[in-house]
């Protein structure tokens, strides 16, 4: 059944269908042809054709299947002209739209092509920058020009980087496969790290949330494809809690707002609910699980003062045992400061400083300043905030720190 659709509605239908269909088409065409560039071009082409045809022909009943058929036919045309091996053409011809998209059920051993694609794009034998760019381009379908702009390189540089990565996959012999058994346990954290990097790239202080929405979509997909790996659910929950605050993170002038200053009515309740549901599916105590539990405490607090700081402090203690790092020590100091008073926070901070772990972290000064302010020494706190402001790299962060200093001691 087809319905006539106005141009705007058709464009929306193409955008909606492409979220599901694009990675599926690319992943399937790569498996059959082994040609990454061809797969991406044909997937892109299918969207272009849909944009031309759907406004007049109507949106097809099975938009994903329609796109897959167009992409497959396009790939057959290209390969026929290039007269490559008959085998690939034969396999392509056999590819029906529905066969190409099996939804794996839990416990079933059917590997989704999209999972192969994700694991290959995130292979540790590719440089981390190449993994991020390739995942964005190939799995998420973000145009090369947009990736280039948001990762601050020229489009030609990004094109070269992507071409090099695809060539390297073929030359180095990186397999198009999801590892199994212990190898999967070893490789999954690397995949999650790429996803989280993709997500946080959207949240650097001076930047706009660039790929956060893509990262959330990808985490949802990955969890659906690997329901037994609950670290994926933990990462999804963590991303959703952070993503729920995207509209509240800045004031009208564009300055960054700390959690306690954000208007909680502007937090995305749907994202928080989805995050809590994902957190419910977590069955282990990995690092994303602890981070997600911390983020959940913030997301569910009715106001800053009502935050469950003792739970957060315990979660940071666990995280510090699991994966010690300067950033975690800093956050642990903040959490202990709120849970048990500023003196307790300063004890944690001084212990971390004594270990030399916080050298070169201007935010350590900001945390100290905040704790000192809460002890009542406003002048000393203002001085520490100014010292921290002089050392941070981003303008938005510097502005926020100087504002704190001015409030304490104008």
């Amino acid at each position: 059944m087809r319905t006539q659709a106005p141009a705007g509605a058709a464009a929306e239908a193409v955008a909606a269908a492409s979220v599901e269909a694009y990675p599926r088409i690319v992943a399937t065409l790569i498996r059959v042809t082994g040609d990454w560039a061809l797969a991406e071009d044909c997937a892109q082409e299918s969207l272009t054709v849909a944009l031309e045809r759907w406004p007049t022909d109507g949106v097809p009943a099975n938009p994903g299947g329609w796109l897959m058929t167009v992409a497959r036919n396009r790939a057959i045309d290209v390969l026929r002209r290039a007269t490559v091996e008959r085998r690939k053409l034969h396999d392509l011809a056999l590819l029906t739209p529905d066969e190409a998209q099996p939804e794996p059920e839990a416990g079933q051993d059917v590997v989704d092509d999209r999972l192969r694609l994700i694991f290959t794009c995130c292979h540790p034998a590719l440089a981390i920058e190449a993994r991020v760019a390739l995942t964005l381009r190939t799995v998420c379908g973000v145009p090369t020009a947009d990736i280039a702009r948001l990762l601050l390189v020229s489009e030609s540089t990004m094109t070269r980087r992507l071409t090099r990565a695809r060539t390297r996959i073929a030359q180095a012999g990186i397999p198009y496969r999801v590892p199994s058994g212990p190898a999967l346990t070893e490789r999954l954290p690397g995949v999650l790290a790429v996803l989280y990097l993709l997500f946080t790239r959207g949240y650097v202080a001076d930047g706009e949330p660039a790929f956060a929405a893509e990262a959330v979509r990808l985490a949802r997909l990955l969890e659906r494809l690997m329901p037994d790996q609950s670290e994926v659910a933990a990462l999804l929950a963590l991303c959703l809690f952070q993503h729920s605050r995207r509209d509240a993170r800045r004031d009208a002038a564009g300055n960054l707002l700390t959690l306690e200053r954000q208007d909680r009515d502007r937090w995305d309740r749907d994202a928080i609910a989805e995050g809590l549901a994902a957190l419910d599916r977590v069955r282990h105590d990995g690092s994303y699980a602890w981070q997600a539990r911390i983020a959940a405490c913030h997301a569910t607090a009715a106001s800053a003062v009502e935050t469950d700081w003792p739970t957060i402090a315990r979660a940071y203690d666990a995280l510090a045992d699991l994966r010690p790092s300067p950033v975690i020590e800093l956050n642990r100091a903040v959490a202990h400061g709120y849970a048990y008073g500023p003196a307790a926070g300063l004890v944690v901070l001084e212990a971390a400083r004594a270990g030399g772990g916080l050298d070169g972290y201007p935010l350590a000064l900001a945390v100290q300043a905040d704790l000192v302010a809460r002890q009542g020494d406003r002048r000393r706190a203002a001085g520490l905030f100014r010292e921290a402001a002089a050392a941070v790299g981003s303008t938005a962060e510097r502005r926020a720190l100087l504002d704190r200093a001015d409030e304490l001691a104008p």
Partner: protein
Amino acid sequence: MKYMMFVCSDAKPDTDPTELPDIHKWVAENDSRGRRLTGDALAPTSAATTVRVRDGELLVSEGPFAETAEVIVGFDLLDCADLDEAIEVARTHPMAREGRLELRPFADLPD
């Protein structure tokens, strides 16, 4: 796929005190599974000789082609399904901990 595995020294070897894997077992295991075709240890670079011909003139010099802190101390020729299998073979070689290993696929040149 065929990979030349260069076995290299490294200024920062592993500090893990557990016993290193046995090289003879590694060779026997991978030879029997057809994943290692040949390989050997090499004499120190002080025994190396570099040969060039320029404008018809033979130039022979003492030493390796490049003076570097890390040097190639051996090689193994691997025949593996893909990079993941080659990495699995490499990780159990004692020099993965004592030094470092480079997996270089053979160029896929037309005949």
